[in-house]
């Protein structure tokens, strides 16, 4: 917690205006795309989080790149540009595309030559025939728009569950099964996860977001484990890695393949299959890496510390004295946790949740909560009916969330024009004896 400097090898959040980006900061001079701009991150290393950097254009006009320079403070265009005159309403404004005397090319050159956003906008305003006729409100709105376009600062933030899930949801909600912030927050509370106890998560597609959420709430001094079951060869860990957990906390999450761990649990050690599984594992791991590189826009080709691990273990297995791979021990550890039973169960599956839930239910201690997430209601409705008949759970509830953001401005407060309207459904309850 105490260390607040930007370090190589950690994930960072780059914020420009309302735009946020998650980035694994692996090379001191990596170039990231922020909107349309390529920005070289040279110089941010070692600075404190929250530092603000000015984007300085640099390179050729064709091959533009911005470099970053630590800024004392930002300023908004409204504060920099004094609005001289304004009209009472918009009656004299015609949008005939001729109000700007500068051409697009000229504006672009201006942008590239000038160092200060306010200078650019001031020049644009001076060359606009309509600006001074606009109402103060529209002038402000105009400046806000220009600010967005020419604003030349980025801020580096520390990733946390809030900004990671916001970024992932905005970027590609399907990759996290459409789990919106409010729903995510309720999964954490309704499963009653805290620094105490062992917890079980089945997750087949949230890119590590749920594991990140639960492990975060268990905290650095958690006395238990989070068993993170997934159906694939590799667990998806992007969000989990992006949290920059200390190794000790990170290791409290045991990610295991659901088949391997249950086979381990019910049938004991399945050593005879290790070799076979391991080689498929290795091949799949490589596939995953490539897949990630192509698909992930979160720039996370290197997300795979764990992937790389497994590839390496695969290699080690070819050595004369084969060492058991890490996942072998993970399976044993996880099945031990399961046989002692857990204090909560969270299921967020792409598959029908019914079988999975009923199979995992016996591992939950009586009186403990469970939370099942699904993107649409029907599978949960049918599970609801099943559970009602089995009457092995209490306080069964199917819920759905609605969330709306607001623009708050004097005299101009209203809900935001767009809202994220999909957030899935939660089926929650408590396990009975």
């Amino acid at each position, binding site marked *: 917690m105490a260390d607040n400097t930007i370090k190589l090898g950690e994930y960072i959040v780059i914020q420009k205006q309302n735009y946020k980006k998650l980035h694994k900061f692996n090379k001191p001079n990596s170039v990231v795309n922020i909107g349309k701009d390529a920005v070289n991150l040279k110089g941010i290393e070692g600075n404190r989080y929250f530092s603000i950097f000015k984007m300085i254009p640099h390179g050729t006009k064709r091959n533009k790149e911005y470099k970053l320079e630590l800024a004392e403070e930002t300023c908004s265009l409204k504060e920099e540009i004094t609005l001289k005159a304004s009209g009472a309403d918009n009656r004299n404004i015609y949008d005939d595309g001729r109000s700007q005397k500068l051409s697009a090319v000229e504006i672009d050159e201006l942008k590239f030559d000038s160092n200060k956003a306010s200078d650019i906008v001031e020049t644009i305003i001076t060359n606009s025939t309509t600006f001074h006729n606009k109402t103060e409100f529209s002038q402000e709105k105009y400046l806000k728009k220009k600010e967005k376009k020419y604003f030349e600062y980025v801020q580096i933030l520390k990733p946390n569950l809030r900004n990671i899930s916001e970024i992932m949801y905005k970027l590609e909600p399907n990759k996290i099964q459409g789990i919106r912030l409010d729903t995510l*927050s309720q999964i954490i509370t309704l499963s009653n996860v805290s620094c105490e*106890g062992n917890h079980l998560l089945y997750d087949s597609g949230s890119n590590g977001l749920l594991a990140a959420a639960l492990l975060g709430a268990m905290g650095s001094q958690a006395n238990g484990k989070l068993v993170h079951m997934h159906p694939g060869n590799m667990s998806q860990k992007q969000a989990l890695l992006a949290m920059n957990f200390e190794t000790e906390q990170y290791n409290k999450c045991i990610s295991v393949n659901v088949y391997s761990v249950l086979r381990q649990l019910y049938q004991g050690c399945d050593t005879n299959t290790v070799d076979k599984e391991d080689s498929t594992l290795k091949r799949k791991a490589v596939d995953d890496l490539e897949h990630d590189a192509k698909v992930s826009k979160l720039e996370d080709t290197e997300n795979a510390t764990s992937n790389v691990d497994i590839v390496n273990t695969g290699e080690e297995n070819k050595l004369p004295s084969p060492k058991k791979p890490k996942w072998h021990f993970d399976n044993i550890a996880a099945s031990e946790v399961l046989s002692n039973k857990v204090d909560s169960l969270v299921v967020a599956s792409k598959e029908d949740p019914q079988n999975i839930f009923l199979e995992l239910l016996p591992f939950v201690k009586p009186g403990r909560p469970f939370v099942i997430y699904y993107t649409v209601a029907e599978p949960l409705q049918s599970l609801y009916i099943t559970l009602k008949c089995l009457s092995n759970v209490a306080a069964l509830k199917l*819920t759905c969330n609605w969330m709306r953001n*607001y623009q708050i401005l004097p005299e101009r407060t209203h809900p935001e024009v767009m809202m994220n309207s999909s957030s899935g459904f939660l089926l929650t309850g408590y396990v009975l004896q």
Partner: protein
Amino acid sequence: MSFRHYKEKIEEGDTVILYLSNHLHAIEVKPEIKNKKGELIENVYQTTFGALKVRNLIGSEYGSKVELSKGWGHVLQPTPELWSLTLPHRTQIIYTPDISMILLQLDLVPGCVVIEAGTGSGSLTHALIRRIRPHGHVYTFDFHDHRAMLAQEEFEAHGIADFVTAKHRDVLAEGFGEDLNGKADAVFLDLPSPWTGVKHAVAAMKKEGGRFCSFSPCIEQVQRTCLALQEHSFQDISTMEVLQTELKVSRRTIPVRDLSFLKHKSSNNPVEEKPSSEKNYIVGSWPATAPGHTGYLTVATLPPQYIRRKCKVDKDIMEDSKADSEVDQVADHENGKMCIEENP
């Protein structure tokens, strides 16, 4: 004591949640209670399914079935969520959908120090405590002395008093106290004029900055709070509303009306037919009435001291700007520039 650790069995002094066909009741496990005359009598809890001798709960397992004189129920160990649904209301309370969002928006994890005002009925406080345990702390304030006292007693009875300090204090008039200056990772306000509390929040937050959240039912309160947050160089200010709806799940059999036979001539020509068959569905129906508004959540980040913007005080929007001088001096970082003209 049943809020502190996971437990297997019910002990005397626990608070248990009795679940009776969709109704929840919180029961304090005391074998005997005092009657009106002050005599100790057997504690019998009356339910719609008959009486429950509270003494009989002792020793039974959480999650198990309990017999009532006219039926049965189940006993659960309380969680902050179950507690919010069953606690004795001394004020309006915040419920799980908002509570969950508040915890996430405040970036709370174990180890955080969080300030809350007012304590009210302690609904949020229980969830805060669970999240910041074992090495964090909650400081909660209420200017109503009885409420502050009852809350403290409740935390003790629940076995979680060492993670929380409940104090009687008017935080808008007096702030959160000298000893909390620069201590908090997060500040949460649920009281009528949160904007006046913003400057105190700034004073209480760590120099590395922190998160702020305020819960207000009315939009006018939100507007003033947002202005105050801007004035105190908060960033990423945003306001949202969260609502949860519970769907009623049931089997439904619906009639099917066949019209296809009308295409062909046939002997009988009825004008009114009984539906020809039925079809079964499992449906989730939306309640006819549901909560339409709880409150607006306004959240913001106070950046670390070295980066806080110098306050440009706009006199007509911040009427209490003059009183801000101490806070602004704190906010006005290392290079010692003054931000309010009036300040010497």
